[in-house]
C-alpha cells in the first residue's frame, strides 16, 4: 500500500520507530487526532502477535464535563520530506533430486512523495490542568459504560501526539511488474511450462491537508471516581505514576 509505505517511512525518517504508530489507512486518519480514544484488546491464549490499536469514534473530551479551559495542543515547526524510492523484488527457485525448476517473479517500482507535516502534541502541563479542572461527565455517557463493560478484555488509550499534513499532498507510484516462470519437471518426461506476463502500474493517491499519518498513545484509566493517564503503564508503578486520581 502506497499510503502505509509512506507513513512507515515517515516514522522512520522522524526517528520515532517503535514510538509513533504509522496509520495504515487514510479512512481511519480522522479518528486519530489528539485526544481521540483508541481501544486495544488484551492478548488471548498467549498468541504470539500483538493486538492492534482500534480507533473509536470518540474523544477524551466527550467523556469530560464541558467547560473551561479548552486544552491546548502544541504544534511543532513544519517538516518537509521529499522521498523517491526505487526498488524491486525477485525470486528464483531450484530443486534437486530429479526435479528441476525455475520460477522468477520480479517487479520494479518507483515511489515519490513530498510531504509537509507538523507534530501536534499535548504537554504534561496540559494533562495536569485537564486532570485538575475537568471531571468525568455525570451520568457517564453510554459509550463509556460500554467501554467499561469490556474492561476485562480491552484497554483504553488516548492519542497524545499526532503527525499531521500541513498541505494537500499527492503520493505517486509507478511500477513495472514482470512475472516469468519456467518449470522443467524431469520426472515427467521433460515437460516445460513457460509463462510470461508484463504489467505497467501507476497509482496516485491524494492526501488532504490535516490528515494524520502517525500517532502516539498513552493508556487511559477510567474509574468510578475519576480518570488518569498512565505515563508508565508497563511498570505497574500505580500511585506514583497515575496522576490525578487516588487508586
Amino acid at each position, binding site marked *: 500500500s502506497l499510503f502505509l509505505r509512506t507513513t512507515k517511512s515517515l516514522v522512520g525518517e522522524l526517528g520515532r520507530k517503535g514510538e509513533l504508530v504509522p496509520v*495504515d489507512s487514510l479512512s481511519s486518519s480522522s479518528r486519530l487526532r489528539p485526544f481521540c480514544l483508541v481501544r486495544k484488546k488484551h492478548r488471548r491464549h498467549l498468541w504470539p502477535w500483538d493486538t492492534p490499536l482500534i480507533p473509536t469514534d470518540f474523544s477524551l473530551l466527550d467523556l469530560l464535563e464541558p467547560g473551561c479551559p479548552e486544552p491546548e495542543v502544541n504544534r511543532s515547526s513544519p517538516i518537509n520530506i521529499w522521498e523517491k524510492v526505487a526498488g524491486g523484488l525477485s525470486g528464483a527457485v531450484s530443486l534437486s533430486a530429479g526435479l528441476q525448476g525455475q520460477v522468477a517473479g520480479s517487479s520494479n517500482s518507483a515511489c515519490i512523495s513530498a510531504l509537509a507535516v507538523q507534530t501536534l502534541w499535548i504537554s504534561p502541563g496540559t494533562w495536569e490542568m485537564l486532570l485538575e479542572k475537568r471531571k468525568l461527565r455525570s451520568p457517564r455517557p453510554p459509550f463509556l459504560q460500554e467501554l467499561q463493560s469490556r474492561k476485562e478484555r480491552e484497554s483504553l488509550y488516548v492519542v497524545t501526539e499526532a503527525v499531521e499534513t500541513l498541505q494537500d499532498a499527492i503520493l505517486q507510484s509507478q511500477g513495472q*511488474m514482470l512475472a516469468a*516462470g519456467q518449470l522443467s519437471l524431469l520426472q515427467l518426461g521433460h515437460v516445460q511450462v513457460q509463462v510470461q506476463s508484463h504489467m505497467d502500474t501507476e497509482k496516485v493517491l491524494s492526501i488532504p491537508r490535516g490528515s494524520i499519518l502517525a500517532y502516539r498513545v498513552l493508556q487511559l484509566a477510567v474509574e468510578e471516581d475519576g480518570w488518569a493517564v498512565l505515563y508508565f503503564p508497563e511498570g505497574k508503578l500505580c500511585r506514583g505514576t497515575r496522576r490525578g486520581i487516588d487508586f
Partner: protein
Amino acid sequence: SQDSGEIHLQSLQEQADGQLQDLATLSSELRLTLLGALRELLQDRQALQELEDTLEQALDTGLLAQLEGPGGLVLSILQDSTGNLSCSRGGAILYILGALAALSEPQLRLLAQSIERRILSQELELVASILERNCNQMEETTRPLPTGGLCALKSEDVVLLLNLVQSCGLALEQPSGQLTWDPTVVPQLSALYGSLSGLQLLADPS
C-alpha cells in the same frame, strides 16, 4: 540455535491446530461458506472488527448480537440447531479473526486475492519455512529465500506471494533472491501464519 526456530514454529503449529481443530469437523461445504464470508470480510476491516467484537462478547456473556452480511453468515454457521453458539467453533473463528486483526489492510487484501487464486497452502509453507529457518536469529541476517513450494505456482502467483512476505517487513534483494531477516517481524509473520493456517483449513476440501 537452529532448534529454537523449530520450537517456535512447532509451538505455533500446535497452538493453531489446538485452536482450529473444531472447524475441521465441519462439512467441506460449510467450511467453504465460511471461507467465502471471510474473504468478503477481508475487504472491509470494520466489518471484520465488528464480527470479532460480537463473537468475543457472545463467548464471554452468552449473549449473541445479530449482524448483517457476511459477518451474520459466519455467526449463523457457528450456531447449533437450537440457536446456541458453539463455544469451540466460536473460539476457532476468534483465533482466525485475532490473527487477521494483527495484519494491515494491504495484507488483508493480499490474503483475499490469495484465496481467489488458491495459493494459501504454498503461502503457509513459505511462511513456516521462513520462521523455522530464521526465528532463532536475533540480528539482521541475509539468507536465500526458501522456495520449495513455489515451483508449482504461476508466475503472477509468485509475485503475489512475495508481496505478502514483503508486507511483513522483510526485504527481498534483487537479483540474488536473498531474504534479509529482521527479528522484529516475528509477531507479524506469526499472525500471518495463524491467519493462513485458519484460512487454509477452511479451503482444504479433504
